[in-house]
């Protein structure tokens, strides 16, 4: 009886060990997939916001640009900002302006998306 009982115990322990290893690998994959999904979502929002900002710059509506966003990509105050839109003018000729528009993540301290953009003031030609 004792022999059978200890055999069952060893069998269970081995099964539990194998399960724990598989569990560890699976959880790692789950965490990675979750993080990739969040990154893709953030990139999607960042691209839309940067492209819209570029259009707003071209329309010379700098006042209507929102610079601060919370973790759900809603506009917010500077103090609550999770993502920040950064506008840097890199070159400026008479009417041709060159600037860099990027979205920076405050929490992860990394740039999510960046766009070099050239536009003309006083006109809105794409040429």
């Amino acid at each position: 009886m004792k022999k059978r009982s200890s055999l069952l115990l060893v069998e269970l322990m081995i099964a539990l060990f194998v399960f724990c290893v598989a569990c560890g690998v699976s959880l790692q994959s789950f965490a990675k997939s979750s993080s990739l999904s969040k990154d893709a979502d953030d990139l999607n929002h960042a691209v839309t916001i940067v492209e819209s900002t570029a259009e707003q710059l071209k329309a010379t509506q700098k006042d209507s640009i929102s610079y601060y966003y919370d973790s759900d990509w809603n506009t917010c105050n500077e103090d609550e900002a999770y993502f920040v839109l950064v506008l840097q003018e890199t070159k400026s000729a008479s009417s041709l302006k060159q600037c860099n528009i990027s979205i920076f993540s405050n929490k992860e301290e990394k740039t999510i998306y960046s766009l070099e953009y050239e536009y003309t003031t006083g006109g809105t030609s794409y040429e």
Partner: protein
Amino acid sequence: MKRTQNHVIDLLFPLIILALFTMCAFSVISLSASIYNKQTSNAEETYLQETPLAYIIEKVRQNDNEGDISIITKEDTQVLTLHNKDYTTYIYAYENTLKEFTIKDNVSFTLSEGHDIIEVDSFSMKEEDNLFTFTVNDKSASVLVRSAS
């Protein structure tokens, strides 16, 4: 011969281990199910926001000629009109569906006649100095028309 003595723990311990194993298995399955659920709902949300915005902006760029793009109100609904030669394309949200209708100028139609594009919870648009801003399901995108002067 020495007599082996049975203890309750001999039976209890394997049972506890088995229960632990079952609990862990259920936790991992429920965790994976919730992660999968979250990711599919995220993907669907992105699809429902991005697709109509990309579609409308592309349509605006296709029809970007001076005076050809405007926002009108019909049946108390905002309607984007894209004029192209003798025809006009109308894009609008009607009963939670983004619809499109292309019809010859001066021919009357009702909003219900449009062809369905995609489901939308909310849709609004505004135009300011030739900068068109479209908001679909709380996500906005702007496009400046080329024909702006």
